[in-house]
């Protein structure tokens, strides 16, 4: 019961993430990859993502400090981050990354900075949401597949 409840909560949280555009199809794929052999795959990937993206974000920040006009550099870093976002389906964050890259393309430093702030914010939000999601799942127990189908 308790588990079912938790699972339901997790499912609805996930649904909301999708609805709000935080996550997209790719995330489903990632979860799909989970199976008996790698039961925590999704969580692993997500935590890996956040670890890596945190690093990338700080890289970008540093780059923006150290190389004020070097849009190419910023763009290159952001490209990496974007790739990561793609992989797990972090769609809102991805959008912000795209905007950032656009600003880089236009050589709009101010625009870049603003976008970057947004990227960071989205990153933090997503992280928080996904953390609670996975926490729910963990509490809900191993029957995660059920939640997933429910969550879609």
């Amino acid at each position: 019961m308790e588990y079912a409840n938790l699972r339901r909560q997790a499912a609805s949280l996930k649904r909301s993430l999708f609805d709000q555009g935080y996550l997209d199809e790719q995330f489903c794929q990632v979860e799909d990859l989970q199976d008996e052999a790698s039961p925590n795959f999704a969580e692993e990937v997500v935590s890996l993502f956040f670890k890596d993206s945190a690093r990338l974000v700080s890289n970008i920040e540093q780059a923006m400090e150290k190389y004020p006009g070097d849009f190419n550099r910023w763009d290159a870093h952001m490209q990496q981050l974007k790739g990561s976002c793609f992989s797990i389906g972090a769609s809102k964050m991805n959008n912000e990354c795209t905007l950032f890259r656009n600003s880089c393309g236009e050589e709009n430093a101010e625009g870049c900075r603003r976008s970057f702030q947004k990227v960071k914010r989205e990153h933090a939000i997503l992280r928080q949401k996904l953390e609670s999601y996975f926490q729910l799942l963990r509490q809900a127990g191993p029957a995660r597949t059920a939640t997933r189908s429910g969550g879609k």
Partner: protein
Amino acid sequence: MTVEKRVSGAGGGGGGDQFPVGMRVLAVDDDPTCLKVLENLLRRCQYHVTTTGQAATALKMLRENKDQFDLVISDVHMPDMDGFKLLELVGLEMDLPVIMLSANGETQTVMKGITHGACDYLLKPVRLEQLKTIWQHVIRRNTKPRGSDNDDAGQKAQNGEGENGGANRNKRQSRRDRDENGDDGDDSDDNSNENGDSSSQKKPRVVWSVELHRKFVAAVNQLGIDKAVPKKILDLMNVENITRENVASHLQKYRLYLKRMSMDASRQANLVAALGGRNPAYSNMNSLDVFRHYNNAYGRYRPVPTSTHSQSNNFLARMNTPSAYGMHGLLSSQPLQLSHAQNTMGTSLNDLGVNNGNLIRAPHMSTMVTGTSGNSFANISNGVSLAPANRSVQPLESSNRQHLGRINSSSTDSFSSFAGESPHFPDLGRSSNTWQSAVPSNIQELGQNGSMSQATLQVNGHRMEPVSSFTTSSNQITSLGNEMQSQAASLASSTLPMVFNQDAAPFTFTSSTNSREALNSNLAFSNSGINNSLPNLRIDSSAVPRQALDGGNAGGGASLQDGRIDQHTTGNQLNYTNDLMGTSRLQRGLSGSLDDIVVDMFRPDNDNGGLFIDGDWQLV
């Protein structure tokens, strides 16, 4: 891990029925998240996956055991090594199918991937369905001989349609690219088919397209000029619809070309010198302008075929095919202009210019110069100037470099140009107008024979474009090839002046079939020549583009030597001989320095007869 064991146990590495289960994939991506997801996706497909976040590690793994993997998937953006470079290296060294992966799906990037030899280009995020079909590339590689690159391209296009996933655009683009390649390839194949049905029948001219010639040169180089028997070459080339006879006659021509190049080199030098004074315009144009023009021109046409131009794709791409040719031509002309000191280079170049065959030479020279960089072609153009650090060519190098790039393109053109096809190039490519104007005047001069080199330069400028177009449109080339073959023969016999005039007038590619033929033949030669030279160049860099090698080796080798031979014009001749012999050496000694190669080349091997097994060689 259990998963691994399970997967690998299930598969068995791509054996018969099991395939694609258990196909061994090496995944390279610096982004750990992507890598992890990819790894899992691949495991889902029941492939055996190995991952690494570093390209260097991947290379090491691949080199350790070439049979360890069936397929490589690599990200484009990686910190330690460019994905394209890795792609080239893998393609060159291990001949494994490589799939590029990137979040960047822009046409240019995809094109780059294709031209570097990627089997496929996937967009991130990768879908499971897409990965499920990647095994086809392995099968294709295994079942289709390399000669069917074009076919593969065409097939890939078809496969692309079947694939779903987010990378539709990507696929479409690659498909389109492939289609182009396929078309080009098909045409050449068709031509070949038509031309060479069976050895017994009198074969119509086989279209020695750039691709084909490149393979030919590669095979020759691999076997070694002295050991290059048509049968073995044929086997190595692994192309359908080519008979031993075709290869034999082509080999003959090639040898003659090389010989001529060496001879002409010395002669050319004189001419070039003379011409140099005459055509200041050319000279000026040639060196830098030409290159610039060409570069621009080439930029457009990156040779579609997988030109493993690691570095200056444009150049290389151009250079590979035409570059070999063009380079020679350019080289010769340039050296003269740039630095007379480099007469040897110039001569070689000149020779090239003058002699259609010489064209090949020039590349050699340039290749020698450029030899430094792995980019065979790029080197050539750059190399010409770069390579011989020792050489006096250096001054030329800077200019040569530019020229080289052009020469390469022009070399192919030079061939044609020599034949008088120079106009062809403009036709082929989008020869810059400046060139055209320059060329016509030059052409006429060239027609005179001395100025060929110069004209070539000019033409080269044009040619460069054509060259690029060459690569891009093998069709054109093939047609040219046919024409050229016949033309080449005639041209070789010094109908150059005529050709030029003809060509000069119509810079349109279509205008002169002769020029085309000349081009083709030239290209073929230059390719071979370039291959020779290219290997030299490549030696320096590990990522010696195979194509460059093939194309330029034959000629390139020789030229390299020539380049080195600042001191002697006669050396050129020797060089050729040496080149021929040396190319094999070069190939072997690619890892060595150019100096070594040069030494090899210079070794007076007057044993020309030995070089050519067929014995068509006539020492001049």
